[in-house]
């Protein structure tokens, strides 16, 4: 048996193109914010996915957006409980270092689309975290499992409908709202969002060593 093979436990459809894959965790230890390399067992194609679940959760979960012509996401969508996937990892350094986790530190998590995955893991893993999530999505229905965040800590910025907490791009939300200069800002998503949001935050006086980013690809 391949040591990296894990069984699928289930699949939660969140939207027509986005789902959470629940994977047998076995003894995998990880830090919130890390990712895994994932593919169907025996397949030659693998992709990086941030871990969505918390460190205490029984299953290992990833949030997957089905990509048109995607070599991995389409395959994952069709997996059934009992099927096997290959998991390598955990990998990556987009984590909350111990020094950040000291009492009183505030965190701003800025995500576009499925870039919210590492922050979901952080919030589930550290219940006492003083955080706010700013989530850039097209439609309010893309606010994946937003009940997992305290309602005052989650802002859905919707660019294609007016059903979100803020109607417009997340960069506009950032421009219109105060960010305390000592906030640790973590950004995850597509590069254009990260670039624009970092520019806004720098203009607001957030020091560079308080900006942490991971581009989604």
């Amino acid at each position, binding site marked *: 048996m391949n040591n990296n093979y894990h069984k699928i436990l289930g699949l939660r459809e969140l939207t027509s193109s986005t789902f959470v894959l629940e994977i047998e965790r076995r003894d995998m230890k990880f830090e919130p914010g890390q990712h895994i390399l994932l593919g169907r067992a025996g397949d030659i194609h693998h992709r990086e996915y941030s871990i969505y679940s918390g460190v205490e959760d029984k299953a290992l979960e990833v949030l997957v957006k089905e990509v048109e012509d995607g070599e991995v996401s389409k395959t994952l969508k069709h997996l059934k409980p009992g099927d096997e996937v290959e998991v390598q990892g955990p990998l990556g350094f987009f984590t909350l270092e111990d020094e950040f986790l000291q009492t009183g530190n505030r965190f701003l998590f800025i995500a576009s689309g499925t870039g919210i995955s590492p922050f979901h893991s952080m919030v589930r893993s550290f219940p006492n975290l003083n955080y706010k999530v700013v989530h850039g999505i097209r439609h309010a229905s893309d606010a994946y499992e937003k009940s997992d965040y305290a309602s005052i800590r989650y802002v859905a910025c919707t660019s294609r409908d007016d059903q979100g907490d803020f109607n417009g791009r997340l960069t506009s939300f950032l421009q219109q709202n105060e960010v305390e200069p000592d906030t640790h800002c973590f950004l995850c998503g597509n590069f254009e969002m990260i670039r624009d949001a970092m520019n806004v935050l720098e203009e607001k006086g957030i020091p560079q060593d308080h900006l942490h980013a991971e*581009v989604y690809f």
Partner: protein
Amino acid sequence: MKYHIVQLGCQMNISDGERVQKVLDQLGFEVTDREEDANLLGVIACSVRQKGIDKVYSRIQKWNKWKNKKNLITFVTGCVLPADREKFLKTFDLVFPMSELPSLPDMIYQYGVVSPAGMQTLDKGLAEMEKPVLKTRNEAAFRVSEAQLPVDKKQILHPERGIEEFWHITPKYGSGFEAYIPIQNGCNKFCTYCAVPYTRGREVSRPSGEILNELHHLVENGYKSITLLGQNVNSYGLDKKGDEISFAQLLRMIGEYGNKSQKKFWLYFTSPHPRDMSDEVIEVISQYDCLAKQIHLPIQSGDDEMLVHMNRKHTVEQYRHIVSTIRRLIPQATLFTDIIVGFTGETDAQVENTRKAIAEFKYNMAYIAQYSPRPGAASSRWVDDIPKDEKKKRYHMLTDELMKHSFEYNKRLIGKTVDVLVRGHDRKAGFLSGLTEGKIIVRFPSDDESLIGEFVKVKLHSAATFSTEGEKVNAQASIPVN
């Protein structure tokens, strides 16, 4: 029986090729530079650019045509993406990751080459071996597709598996005075422009005892320039989670050995990642004579946004801290780097930041690459939106900046006497050339081939952008060091 290997790619591939050659030599094959004379034809592939893989395809087409006239076995190994491997399985006779090299004799044997002497006397000299005989082979018998393989044989998904056995093979060193020692394989960093994490798999560190044994053997045999190799050479040991020494500790052990050995040698390493470049590593380099005062520290871009886009996991400020530590603790060190120009979305302002970084860090050498999407890498799924002419323009702009600082440094060497490891004849007739400890090229008038592979002292009298020139002075530098 003769073999011919087409070697593509980086120093790691060259080092891997030295081990492939050793295995084939021990089987009784003889190397030939003429591919048309060979019975065994192999490629050590590189997936860094599509061009490299295109070369593999064109080569195998030619070789397969030759199969109508003679018995041939073809193989491909090295850095191969899973999708290319699928295709190669249909065209090459043998396709294997480098970690399976120890099984190459079995693969060849099963394929139809019978060389009992070669198979059974791996440790004996070539002179004692019989020449292998090529049997007529069954064309279809050994064409095994990926789908037919049992799951645990699908090694390409785990090119790191078995790498420890691969490291046990003593290489056929390509030089009598310069050598590479692989200490780590694979990459966990996932820079968006790079395919290595998909071709070589996860980071695996070689046992430190083996590394030190290979180093001692090389130094005892007169090797004078030794380079530790790894895709992320300074993340050495991290994968072992406390069960292996750190890179700094490894360097310290080599430094201590250097002090005791009474042999002069220079120890280099490449390529480090800024994220894992600790102050301790720099401190250790500053403390031991044998640890060369030359640092190759890839920056890739001088712009923080580009570094995020490249998923480099460091900022310019963090890089600046490392360079300032190097300048403080090892002021004599030369500094080399790698830069990618024209990466997806790079603006004029961002390339200007890279120019400023070159000006600030005053590199002696920068390997500047014009960006081209690398198949399999994440960025290959993005639009390559900087036109070729613009990339070229930016490349020249950065090169001009580099040349200023390199030339300034070299001019300051005029009048100084430096130790030089002589590497061979220079392009300039009647001259030999070599490298200083800091890898500055030095040429001097001499036809004395006995100096090749030796340390000499050269008094420099002139400087060019990337080289210097001088006269050899009498006292040889190949004296024991404390």
